């Protein structure tokens, strides 16, 4: 019976990885850019959620005379955080990535810029808000469902897992079934021919960033609700791990992000179930290394043929 509990935990952890990995994979799929700032956008999302929530609940530094019911506050916090986080992502795109793209700079310079933008978000947060950790308020009344045989699940866990799957289905639908999704796939196929077809390149790219960043914002809220201690470096490790998950799944493919995310979740929880928890990272990364060794382009990735 214990194994079901582990599976549920793995699904929850995998959901966080998957939600963040989706953002990496979307941007990579369109721009061939590793947006290393994405893990920190997730962190920013969690902080935005914190500030929105405490303001709405009337317990923050800013009193607007609102003492909302937690459920109502949650209903407003989720869309507000997603929108604000998307704005952060778009701001990064507009101020840093787009000028470089216009100049036709080497892809690597954009990657370095992304890496540095992530560092700025992390340390800017540390400098502005201080090193003290923030406690995320309880927005959701905790309900524990006992499934019998010692297996129990909280409502939050179910929400996290359902959210990850719903986001996956939504993004899969957008990318494969809609016109804008077709444009996104088109850009990754040929960036130069797409504007000639009358497709506004920058609009599509901004849309991609909105999608990816708002999913990171959603992951930020859910993470803050599950593990309610926020600190500036929370996005770094989970971001790198989600990125690795995206690559193992085959970066640029939505299915790959989900599979990679859940795979990483299962490996981590599986290791902790058997070995001491300090070995978690060692095993998780070793398994990922072996997968990449055997399938160099990830599970769903297609090998790029190089023309001579």
């Amino acid at each position, binding site marked *: 019976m214990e194994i079901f509990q582990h599976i549920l935990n793995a699904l929850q952890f995998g959901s966080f990885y998957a939600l963040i990995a989706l953002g990496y994979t979307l941007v*990579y799929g369109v721009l061939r850019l*590793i947006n290393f700032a994405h893990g920190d956008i997730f962190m920013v999302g969690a902080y935005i959620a914190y500030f929105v929530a405490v303001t709405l609940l009337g317990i923050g530094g800013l009193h607007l005379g609102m003492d909302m019911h937690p459920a109502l506050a949650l209903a407003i916090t989720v869309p507000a955080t997603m929108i604000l986080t998307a704005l952060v992502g778009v701001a990064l795109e507009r101020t*840093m990535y787009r*000028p*470089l793209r216009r*100049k036709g*700079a*080497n892809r*690597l*310079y*954009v*990657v*370095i*810029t992304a*890496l*540095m*933008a992530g*560092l*700025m978000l*992390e*340390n*800017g947060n*540390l*400098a502005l808000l201080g090193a003290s950790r923030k406690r995320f308020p309880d927005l959701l009344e905790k309900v524990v469902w006992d499934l019998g045989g010692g297996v129990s699940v909280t409502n939050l866990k179910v929400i996290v897992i359902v959210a990850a799957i719903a986001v996956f289905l939504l993004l899969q639908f957008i990318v494969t079934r809609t016109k804008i999704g077709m444009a996104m796939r088109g850009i990754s196929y040929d960036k130069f021919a797409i504007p000639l077809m009358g497709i506004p390149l920058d609009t599509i790219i901004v849309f991609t960033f909105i999608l990816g960043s708002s999913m990171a914002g959603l992951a930020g809220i859910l993470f803050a609700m599950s593990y309610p201690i926020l600190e500036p470096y929370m996005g*770094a490790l989970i971001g*790198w791990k989600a*990125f*690795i998950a995206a*690559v*193992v799944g085959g*970066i640029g493919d939505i299915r790959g992000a989900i599979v990679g995310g859940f795979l990483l979740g299962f490996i981590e929880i599986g290791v902790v179930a058997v070995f001491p928890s*300090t*070995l*978690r*990272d*060692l095993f998780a*990364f*070793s398994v*990922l*290394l072996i997968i*990449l*060794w055997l399938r*160099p*382009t*990830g599970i769903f*990735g297609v090998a790029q043929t*190089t023309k*001579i």
Partner: protein
Amino acid sequence: MQKHTVTIGVFALIALIAVLAQFNVLDAYYVSVLMFMGVNIILATSLNLVNGYMGEFSCGHGGFMCVGAYVSSLCTVLMFSKNAILGAPLLPPSMTFIGFPLALLVGSFAAAIAGLVVAIPSFKTRGDYLAIITLAANYIVISAINNMEIIGGPRGFMGMSATEVGMKSVLDIPWVLIFTMLGTLGSVWLLRRFVSSTLGKGVSAISQDEIAAEIMSVDTNRMKLIAFMLSSGLAGLAGGLYAHILGYVNPQSFDIMRSTEIMVMVYLGGMGSLSGAALAAVLFTVLMEALRFLDVWKWVVIPLLLILLMQFRPEGLMGNKELADLFPKLRKFYSFK
């Protein structure tokens, strides 16, 4: 004689710094900054071999540095200091002169072997996927050492200062400083020789076009193996020096943040320029010290500077040019060795 000006100048500078440090004209703070500068120069130039000349994106250089630091520390502690687990020193302090360089070499070899973890997958994998492998390799090294309780785990490992004490007991001059400077000079010289050799041209050919290189009879797998192992081996040397400068190592100081720092130096200097990477390492070390007053804002300002650099001069300070390309008259003052 004119041809040897630069060579003589460099050795004179090393001697001058050593003498100044000996007579306390340079206080301990400046000496330590100089030593970290040397370590950073080795790290930046060696990473430049992979990221600049070979055109790959390795973001796990800190991991190889970590291997070198721990292995060489283990060697010197085993030989020269009393340790709860490794027991009494095996050799007398007068042997430190042979033991210390030897330990550094062993550390470099161990790091080069660790480089195989990245080198072998690189035969099939390129670009972003290889970047992940280097990243994973960094994490694996850190968490492996975190889990080895016998060498301190996350608490770190110490006892390396006995080596310096041993060397000083024979002759009281700043030995670690001298070894660091010689190590820096040696690795820059080695890299310079390497990139101008046929092997180095092969490495550059891979960055231009791997398939074309193969057609032109470059053994790409062998090139990658050599480049990765040389690069990680030198990172191991830098790690060994770093460990003996501080006298203490812990796995957290070699994490992804350290790797990022090294990458910053490479891109600041310009990809594919040895003098650029060395110059950037010097500049970066000075900048890190000069901006100390900014406290937590330091790590906001440095990324911002780099972002601005990428926007307005993306090829880095030197581009892919060497110092001698910018100042052709310099060529008169050295003969290429």
